[in-house]
Structure formats: structure tokens, C-alpha cells
């Protein structure tokens, strides 16, 4: 058992391509999460440590919508017939986005607003701690209510993928998840660039006072941005609940990944988060796929990622894409 895999990385093109494709798919979902976090950072100037928990909630909402409302009986009074409609998965994803949006907005209004009205002495530290507390609270609340047993939604769409180039296998649920992520990212970018509220958000992120002068209510924009960020996290969770088994602490890893990505891409930069997500996805896949000794390298894999993360923080805290929404 020599280090065959390492060689496969060098001389097996299909294997390498498969790794990269898989990495890009996972990376697209990472990017969706990270864009949510970056929107929050650029408008409110804080990092939400509870980002992963909104991801977790999004997944659970979709799961329960699909499991419990799979057939809705609709009674139409005049005709008197009953129509049965299955809850479509895309509606479930949108609904979990709505739920997480409102949860995020409510939290912003109750706990973060005082930061911006000068009622808190050290706002930066306050934000870290209060979102940290929220993460703790949401995790254990979910545990207490739902319990520790893993759940998973059925594949949204099931189809056989012809093996690309005869060798590479990619599961249908991953393709669906990546497609949803791409659509969500696309709509978010469009929204930020082309609509009035999107522009207002960007204006607030660039200069709060100047934006206020032009008639934008910065407080409302804060609440909206936090809700939007949480919504993106929730939708990322909603698309992944058919790929991974879902438990109450599933968000811990997801938030850790998002932190790494936004630091890599530059805090507050949307293109940075997008490319950061894709890069992290691919690097992780290659790291796992190409290390010579699987038993040791896998145990240290997360540590390598964190070391790089720490180095970027130290030597290039502005990331590689600069700041600006």
C-alpha cells in the first residue's frame, strides 16, 4: 500500500478533474453562506457568530415543511372538492429563507440596535459576545426541542447522472444544491447592483452618514441587511439538508468555514466571498484527495486550513479582494 493516491493526483486527469468539480460544487454553497456573512459585515460592521445557527434553522425548517406538509389537502368550498398539493421543494427553500430573514431581523432590532444608538459602551466587543450568546442559545434550544437525532430530507430531484468522461460521479442532490446556490448568489448580486434597496445597502456600507443625508434610514438598512444575511445562510442550509444529515450543531462547522472564507476574500467584499468560497471548496477537496498518508493527513487537514487562516489574519487582514460591498 504505497502512496498510490498521491500519484493518482499527478497522473490521473479524471481523478483530479473529479476532485475539482466536487470542490466547486461544495464551494458554491460555502460562497452562499459567506456572502450572507459579508453583507452583514459590510453594513453593520460586525461578524455574526450565530451565522451557522441560521444555516441550521434553515435546514430544519425545510425538512419539517417537506416531511410534515408533503401533501396539503385544500378544501375548496364552492366546488366542494379536495385538491391535494405536494409542498414543492423550492417553495420550502424560499419559506425557510423567509423564516430566517424574520428571525434575523427580530434579533437585530432587539439586540443589535442599541449598538448604533450609542447605548453600548464598546459596540465591537458587544456584537461578538451577543451573537456568541445567540449561537449558544439557538443550538441548545434546538437540542431541547427537536432532540439529538439526525434527520435528512429526501433528494429534491432524483436523476441519474451519466458518468462524466466515464469516471467521475457526482450525485444529483449536490448538483441541485449547487444550482440553487448559484441562482441565489446571482439574484443577490443582481439585487445589490440593480435595485434601489440594494444600492441603499451599498451606500450605507460605504458611508453611513452620507447615506442618511440622502434620505436612507440607516437603522432600517441595518435590520434589513442582517435579515438578508441570515436569509442567505438559511437558504444554504435549506439546500443542504438533502445532502448532509442534520443535527442541532451542524452550524458550528458551517460558521467556521464562512469565517475562513470572508477573511480570505476580504471582510465585506462580495466578490471576495464568492471566490473565497470556491477556492476553499477546491483546496479542501484537493487536500483530502491528494495527501499521501490518508490516516495522518486527514487528522491534520482542518489544522492546515486554520493555520493558513491565522496567517492571512496576521499578514493580510484585508484579504485578497479588498473591501466594498
Amino acid at each position: 500500500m504505497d502512496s498510490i493516491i498521491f500519484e493518482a493526483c499527478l497522473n490521473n486527469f479524471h481523478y483530479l478533474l473529479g476532485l475539482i468539480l466536487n470542490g466547486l460544487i461544495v464551494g458554491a454553497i460555502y460562497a452562499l453562506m459567506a456572502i450572507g456573512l459579508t453583507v452583514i459585515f459590510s453594513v453593520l460592521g460586525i461578524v455574526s457568530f450565530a451565522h451557522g445557527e441560521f444555516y441550521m434553522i434553515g435546514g430544519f425548517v425545510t425538512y419539517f415543511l417537506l416531511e410534515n406538509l408533503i401533501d396539503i389537502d385544500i378544501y375548496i368550498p364552492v366546488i366542494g372538492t379536495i385538491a391535494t398539493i405536494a409542498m414543492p421543494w423550492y417553495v420550502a427553500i424560499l419559506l425557510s429563507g423567509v423564516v430566517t430573514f424574520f428571525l434575523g431581523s427580530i434579533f437585530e432590532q432587539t439586540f443589535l440596535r442599541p449598538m448604533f444608538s450609542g447605548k453600548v459602551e464598546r459596540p465591537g466587543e458587544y456584537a461578538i459576545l451577543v451573537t456568541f450568546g445567540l449561537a449558544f442559545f439557538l443550538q441548545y434550544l434546538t437540542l431541547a426541542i427537536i432532540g439529538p437525532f439526525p434527520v435528512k430530507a429526501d433528494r429534491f430531484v432524483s436523476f441519474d447522472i451519466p458518468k462524466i468522461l466515464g469516471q467521475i460521479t457526482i450525485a444529483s442532490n449536490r448538483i441541485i444544491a449547487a444550482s440553487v446556490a448559484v441562482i441565489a448568489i446571482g439574484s443577490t448580486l443582481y439585487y445589490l447592483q440593480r435595485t434601489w434597496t440594494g444600492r441603499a445597502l451599498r451606500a450605507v456600507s460605504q458611508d453611513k452618514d452620507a447615506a442618511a443625508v440622502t434620505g436612507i434610514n440607516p437603522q432600517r438598512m441595518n435590520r434589513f441587511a442582517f435579515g438578508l444575511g441570515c436569509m442567505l445562510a438559511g437558504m444554504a442550509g435549506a439546500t443542504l439538508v438533502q445532502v448532509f444529515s442534520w443535527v442541532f450543531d451542524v452550524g458550528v462547522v458551517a460558521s467556521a468555514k464562512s469565517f475562513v472564507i470572508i477573511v480570505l476574500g476580504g471582510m465585506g467584499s462580495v466578490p471576495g466571498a464568492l471566490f473565497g468560497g470556491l477556492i476553499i471548496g477546491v483546496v479542501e477537496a484537493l487536500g483530502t484527495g491528494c495527501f499521501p498518508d490518508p490516516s495522518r493527513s486527514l487528522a491534520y487537514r482542518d489544522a492546515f486550513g486554520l493555520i493558513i487562516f491565522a496567517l492571512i489574519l496576521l499578514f493580510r487582514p484585508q484579504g485578497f479582494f479588498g473591501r466594498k460591498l
Partner: protein
Amino acid sequence: MIEEKSLKNKLFSLPGLIVAVVLVAAIALPLVISYFNLPPYQIHVFIVGYYFAILASSWALLAGYAGQFSFAHMAFMAIGAYTAGILGQQLGTNVITGIIIGTVMAGFWGFLIGVLCLRLRRTYLALFTIAFSEILRLVLNAERQVTGGPDGMSFNPLVAGTTSNIPPYYIHLALLIGVLIFMYALANSRFGLFWRSIREDEEAAAAMGVHVVRYKVMVFVITAMIAGLAGAVHWHYVSIVTPNDLLIRQMSIVITMAVIGGIESLIAAALGAIVIQYGLEFMRPLGSWRLVVFGLLLMVTLRFFQNGLLYPLLQRLYRRGAEAETVAKRQVASEP
């Protein structure tokens, strides 16, 4: 004449009395417990409470006084504990040597992290220190030959030849009191002033001639050594430490203790730790709901009681003492 009187007033002032009462109570606790045949388990709860009190109050010095919101405090604790443990297990050194070297090692890493973190603030500092403690945890998990990996590492007993809880209780208590006095003295000296000036405005402090680099690194080294010392002593008592003991979840417990006690007061943070440790233990039959309460309490305290829940109480008592003092002073002054 006036000097003497105010001193006397201070000595018998309310806060002084309270400190004395709390101290006497803490010292007498094991006596009371064994006299009334109460369960020694209570002693264990307080031992763990004192351990967390050292961690929470030293974190309060770092975060509340010097404004460095580091999440690496438990990592320093683990460096102290693991160094002491590895020395004891692999080289067979005695407990005291292990604790001393562990403390020094934690201070050394505190120095490194302090130097590396000079430029980082707020979120960046938080993220960097989280990354550092996660890396440490992964390394401790992976290096099984040295650290015992996920099974944990065993320690020689803290006090050889006895299984009684009472000697460790006094060791922890003495450590807590010693550390509190040391930190209190520091915080009320020039150092404390400089740290607070750095916390409020780093540039302004530098402009006023505060050697920002030196004092920032210094506070990291000092608090890291205190955390390492607490870790080295405490895990000798528990007898086994695992990498799970430095999960971010554990760090968040220390932070919550300090926040609920009052992050800008060392004593309040220490009291907060003891109260919460006791509360969590008391609520154990509630299962995971107690952690829900815990998270909610942290958020509510931050939002509505920024000075913590205990600090305002202490302050009120102190003010009452100060009031009496002022009245006395005025009386003295008005005497012909």
C-alpha cells in the same frame, strides 16, 4: 489625625467587612461541611468554581481592563495543564516542578500570541484566537503518543497520599485569593491605568507616551500565566484532561461567567464564576434546558445589564461604605 481616622473607617467599611465575611466563609466551608456531615461533593463544586473563578477573573483583566477580547484563554490553560502533565508522565518530574514549568510555558505562548496579535482588534482578534485554540485542540487530538489524544492525558495526584477533597480545596482557594490580590494590585497600579488607556483609545494612549506594545504584550503574558497556572493545578486534581476541555464551548462558559459577574471588575467576575458554576451544577437535572437558560442569560445580561449582574450590587455596597466615609471625613473636617 484625619489620615488615621479614614483608615480606620476603611477597615471597618462595608466592602471591607464583606470581603472579610466572604473569606472567612470560604475558609470555614469544609469545616462546616464536615461538621454537619454535608456531602463532600459540595466541596468539589466549589473547587471547580474557584478554578473557573481564576479563569474568569484573569480573562476579565485581559478583556475588561485591557480591552483584548481573546478566545485563547482556555488554550493557555491547556498549555499549562498539558505541559505539566507531559512532564509528570513522560519525564517523571514532581507535581510542583510540572506546575511551575507549565505556568512558564503558558506565559511563553501568551508572549507569542500577544506579539502576533498586536495589530489585530475586535473581530480579527477574536477570529485569530479562536483559530489558535482550535489548532491547539487538533494538535492535542492528533499527537496521541505524547498527549494521549482524544482519550485524554492522566496526571499524578495533586496531593499525594490522600484522596480527601480538603487539601485541593485550600490549594484552589489560596490560588484564587493570591491571584486576585496580585491582579487587583496590578489593576490599581500604573499598569492598570495604562491598560485602560489602551482599551479606550490606543492611538491616544500611544501619543500620550504609553508604551502600547509593551503593555499589550505584558497583559497577554500575565493572564496567560495565570490561566496556565490554574490549568496545571486544577487538572492535577481532576486527574485527567482531554482536548474537549478546550473546546470553544468551554471558553464561552468562562466568558459568560465574566460577563454575568461584571467584566470590568475582577472580584465580580470571580464571584460570577462561582455563582454560575454552582447554578449549572444545581440545575443539572434539567438537562439541556439549563444551557438554553445560560445562553439567554448571557444575551440579556449583555443587552440590559452591561456592567454584569453582580458588579452593580458590589458597587452599591461599596458606595454605601464610601458614603459613610465621606460623612465621617466631613465631620472630622468640620470639627474645630
